């Protein structure tokens, strides 16, 4: 564990709590999916929570976040209210995108959360753009761009890394390497499987970190963010992680062994942090259960809120195809009132 960040009990409890919150939120989503209240694709983050929680801990309200279709963890950790998120999952008007986006397309202008991007690699150019705008306008913000290792296959990955470094843009690229793009293992998709090394080809400082260790992720993200905020250009963080569950709800997982999944489950980022805290006298008996109970109350409240929500009137179907204003200019954090 790094010494660069504060490791006091409250800080660690907050990290633990947020990871548990994401895990349990998604467990509820599975239930709701099985009850056919959530439909479409549902991609779970189960196992990868340390990545979003660790990285998000170093971001500021004025920073942009660009994520993928597996973004419930990022959305919660960024501070999008669970009610708005759950209502979105249920396709309700009270959802953060009025039910138009669903699980894969969470957007929230107030927290500068720019998707929810379900074209693999498609978010990276957007991140280059928000960072370019911040730099051109002299704002001291960074853009944090999450993507999976599958995005490395895409041309946009290479184009975007090159552009960000070429123009010294404030982008924190965070690769969530969970080893499989859907069912295709990294080693049969990439000639060079060392992803952090690829960023180095664009002369970008890059680091690979244990993505199952939230403190290590936060420490690495803090180092990268510090450098980016000093104006030295982008940084790259490869978080080596694993998704414990299927790619989506339609995945029979024929491409990996149960033993492999079990071996990774033994490295569960939540259990690992809880055990370490317990061993060091930082998590007392019954505390984890108390956190879980509190989170379950928040989840129950969010579900009630979502289920009681309304449906957007069909008359509104074509609204926002063409815009008549630029709403983010009044919605985003730090915007003029």
């Amino acid at each position, binding site marked *: 564990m790094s010494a660069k960040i504060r490791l006091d009990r409250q800080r660690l409890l907050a990290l633990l709590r947020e990871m548990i919150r994401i895990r349990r939120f998604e467990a509820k989503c599975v239930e709701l999916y099985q009850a056919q209240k959530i439909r479409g694709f549902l991609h779970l983050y189960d196992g990868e929570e340390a990545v979003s929680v660790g990285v998000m801990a170093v971001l500021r309200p004025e920073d*942009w976040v*660009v994520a993928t279709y597996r973004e419930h963890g990022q959305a919660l950790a960024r501070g999008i209210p669970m009610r708005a998120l759950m209502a979105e999952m249920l396709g309700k008007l009270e*959802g*953060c*995108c*009025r*039910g*138009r*986006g669903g699980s894969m*397309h969470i*957007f*929230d*202008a107030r927290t500068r959360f*720019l*998707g*929810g*991007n379900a*074209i693999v690699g*498609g978010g*990276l*150019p*957007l*991140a*280059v*753009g*928000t*960072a*370019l*705008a*911040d730099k*051109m*306008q002299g704002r001291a913000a960074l*853009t944090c761009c999450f993507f999976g290792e599958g995005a490395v296959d895409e*041309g*946009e990955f290479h*184009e*975007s890394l*090159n*552009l960000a470094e*070429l123009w010294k843009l404030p982008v924190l690229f965070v690769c969530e390497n969970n080893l499989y793009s859907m069912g295709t293992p990294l080693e049969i998709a990439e000639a060079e499987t060392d992803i952090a090394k690829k960023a180095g080809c664009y002369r970008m400082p890059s680091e690979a970190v244990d993505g199952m260790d939230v403190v290590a992720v936060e420490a690495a993200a803090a180092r990268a963010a510090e450098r980016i905020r000093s104006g030295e250009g982008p940084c790259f963080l490869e978080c080596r992680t694993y998704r414990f569950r299927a790619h989506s709800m339609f995945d029979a997982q024929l491409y990996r062994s149960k033993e492999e999944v079990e071996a990774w489950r033994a490295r569960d980022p939540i259990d690992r942090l809880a055990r370490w805290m317990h061993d060091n006298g930082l998590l007392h008996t019954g505390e984890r259960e108390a956190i879980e109970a509190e989170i379950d109350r928040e989840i129950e409240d969010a579900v009630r809120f979502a289920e009681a929500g309304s449906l957007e009137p069909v008359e509104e179907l074509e*609204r*926002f*195809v*063409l*815009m*008549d*204003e*630029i*709403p*983010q*200019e009044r*919605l985003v954090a730090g915007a003029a009132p």
Partner: protein
Amino acid sequence: MSAPTTTYRECCKQAIRAALLADPRVFLMGEDVGRYGGCYAVSKGLLDEFGPERIRDTPLSESAFVGAGIGAAIAGMRPIVEIMTVNFSLLALDQILNNAATIPHMSGGQFAIPLVIRMATGGGRQLAAQHSHSLEGWYAHIPGLKILAPATLEDARYMLAPALLDPNPVLIFEHIMLYNLEGVLDPAVTSVDIEHAAIRRPGRDVTLVTYGGSLPETLAAAETLAREGIEAEVIDLRVLRPLDEATILESVRRTRRCVIVDEGWRSGSLSAEIGMRIAEQAFYELDAPLRRVCSAEVPMPYAGHLERAALPNRERIAAAVRTLLRPGS
């Protein structure tokens, strides 16, 4: 003293220059827009005046720099992204369709994308099959985009300003055969709208609907027909999406005949869309079948005679009109 002549190219440049002067959030980015001066020399000289931050040369990364334009527009800038030619824009089609056209609606109206993308389109310079197509009709298929096709000096000069003020992604298609178009910029015009089609030539006998690079050929065909006693009305669409149906239908209801001239391929084209809208809304007011003059359904060939045979021209347009007014001729 008569007003000085100018060119369509110069009008495009002056439009960009005026936009850069008017709004510090505006910048131009694209391949070779700076040091080279633009593939079609539109941005020549702007680098010296505005510097490399605002006249921003990009690597050959269409998807990344178009996506960066989208991101920058979201985060407060007003980018003008130049794509060298429409065929190259396909490398950025994911960004244009899945992000620019989609995010406002998909986000429940939280984000608008005030972005302008300019690109060259069309054939006629023997640039062969990977630099000569007219794909603006494809883009006009996409909800969430506005599609402009300036065909006159005034539109080349003045369409950019309202496009930049628009909260939506606006694509401007500049036909390569128009860049050298010369004339006098009408001093009475200081702004244009980006909503309406324009009647470029009034006429009573037939409506010719066209846009972009086909406008000069269509007007020439109308002059030929006038000498034969056929008065053709020529509509310049100007805006390919959303279509100004009212102007088209009003004209067709008067002339009761219509020929659509579209440099795109015929199948599934913008001309098909316009024809169908007329059929849906003015069928009983027609005195003759609808006709189209489109490009031949081939990849654009290099050889000059084959390219000419593939593109709409004044002779084919006039001939199509004659079949409506003089059956059997």
